[in-house]
């Protein structure tokens, strides 16, 4: 059932022209940024070669690329999550799901999995672009893996939050603004926090992504993402149940 709902979500996404437009635009931005970083790297490479322990292409091109993607996704994911439940409620298709022999948890997981799968397709081009470099040089696979893992976890947490905000309202646009506001708020709290050990850092998904970005696999960061995602998925399931109570 989870797969069925996820596939329906994907089919609906791909039948909309705007999805293809966003896909194309985003690939263009990724590619542009990748090439710009690569060009900068080639320019400074002679100087880098003089250093005793020079940074490789993965950390000068790859890591910044993932960092940009994490910021772009913060603004982009709410545009996709807004429709998930709010639009079903507005078009009154939610009744089909609610009257079907499927539990609320599965509905939520199906929607979550559907959109996450789509976004994974979208960010899958990042490692592909970087792997083209392995034709000419050696890549740091560990750093790449850490970045990929981090980005997937980050995307999952964005989707879970967006899904929850979408379940609160009937208007998709309000859901989009809502989740964008929350994500930006968390990010601003992180970068605006006065001291390095301020607790505000701990709430921001982007802060926890920084360790992954620099190649550090910290289990506490992974645990943060998993708990963050799980927390909002549970809240969403709860909200769907409340839908039956409050109408």
């Amino acid at each position, binding site marked *: 059932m989870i797969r*069925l709902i996820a596939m329906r979500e994907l089919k609906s996404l791909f*039948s909309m022209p705007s999805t293809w437009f966003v896909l194309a635009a985003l690939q263009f931005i990724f590619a542009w940024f990748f090439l710009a970083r690569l060009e900068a790297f080639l320019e400074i490479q002679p100087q880098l070669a003089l250093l005793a322990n020079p940074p490789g292409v993965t950390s000068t091109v790859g890591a910044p690329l993932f960092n940009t993607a994490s910021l772009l996704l913060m603004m982009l994911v709410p545009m996709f999550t807004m429709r998930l439940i709010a639009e079903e409620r507005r078009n*009154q298709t939610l*009744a*089909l*799901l609610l*009257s*079907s022999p499927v*539990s609320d948890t599965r509905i939520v997981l199906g929607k979550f999995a559907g959109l996450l799968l789509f976004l994974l397709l979208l960010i899958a081009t990042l490692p592909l672009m970087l792997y083209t470099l392995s034709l000419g040089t050696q890549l740091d696979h560990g750093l790449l893996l850490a970045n990929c893992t981090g980005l997937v976890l980050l995307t999952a947490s964005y989707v879970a939050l967006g899904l929850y905000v979408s379940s609160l309202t009937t208007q998709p646009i309000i859901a989009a603004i809502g989740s964008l506001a929350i994500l930006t708020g968390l990010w601003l709290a992180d970068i605006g926090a006065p001291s390095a050990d301020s607790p505000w850092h701990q709430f921001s998904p982007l802060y926890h992504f920084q360790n992954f970005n620099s190649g550090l696999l910290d289990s506490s960061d992974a645990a943060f993402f998993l708990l963050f995602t799980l927390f909002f998925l549970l809240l969403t399931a709860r909200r769907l149940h409340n839908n039956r109570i409050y*109408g």
Partner: protein
Amino acid sequence: MATRLLIRAYILGYIDGYSQLQMPATLSNATQQITLSARNLTRSFGKRPVIHDLTLELKRGEVLGLLGHNGAGKSTTLQMLTGCLLPDRGEIDICGISLQKNPTIAKAHIGYLPESPPLYRELSVEKYLLFAARLRGMKQDAVSDALTQVLQRCGLEPVRSKMISTLSKGYQQRVGIAQAIIHKPDIIILDEPTVGLDPAQIRDIRHLIRELGNTGSVILSTHLLSEVESVCDRVEIMQNGRLIYGDSSDRMQHYGEVSGFTISLRHPPALIELESISGIESVEQLSETEFRILHAPDNNPGSALLSLAAEKGWQLTQLTPLHATLEDVFVRITSEDKS
């Protein structure tokens, strides 16, 4: 060993065949089987009570009409019966399974068409119906047969690969009905299924509902008296969240009957002349040429009136029997309740 297995298979096969032979007998028992029972449902939105202590039962092979004005609580009741809304108090059993305790098992027996059909407009008719069937727990290999059958039944074959958003309202409503019946549920719940359709489509859909009522049970809500008369076996009338009257559709029709007709005469006589015809109880002049005539139920003065009209040259242009409106039925039922 092998022979033993063979014998066992044979016995099993035999038993299977035997049980098939017994099918007609069990089927006739099943016609009396209760598929849906709701007891003492109560529901309020905030502080406003909407449904009061509603008890409802539905047997297999029955079409039940839930009749009432807009805002009487019909849709709320149907939402509760399908599990879209939880009742504050009361229990619902679907084919003997409690909807509150085992929602996922119970809901597999329901097909539901809400007030506005729940359509994913960006999907094609076929894809959407396949999704609906699988969502209701149909197995992958049974789905394609069910799809061809339902497309044919609802007259959707010509539009099967079109996107739902491009279909007309009538076709969209049919897709809505198709998604409610594709998985061959025991209970089909339709919320105002004929709203917004043209007369020919209404006739087709009523015919389809009648057909569905032969195999499963159907509940439909409506505010049209004629719909209940033409489709339903039984009717429950709802007002202000209560069931105020429940009976077979035939017996309800006696409430719907008004003994009288309206006539139009090109050269009308004096009012007294009409009133003096035997059998006529009262005459009311609606306009210069139109009259409403009421008579005793067992004494129809129609033929006397016709011959008199021909004899005296009144030139009868129209004679229409009166039909009660839902309002009339309500008034009669409530006034009877009081007495």
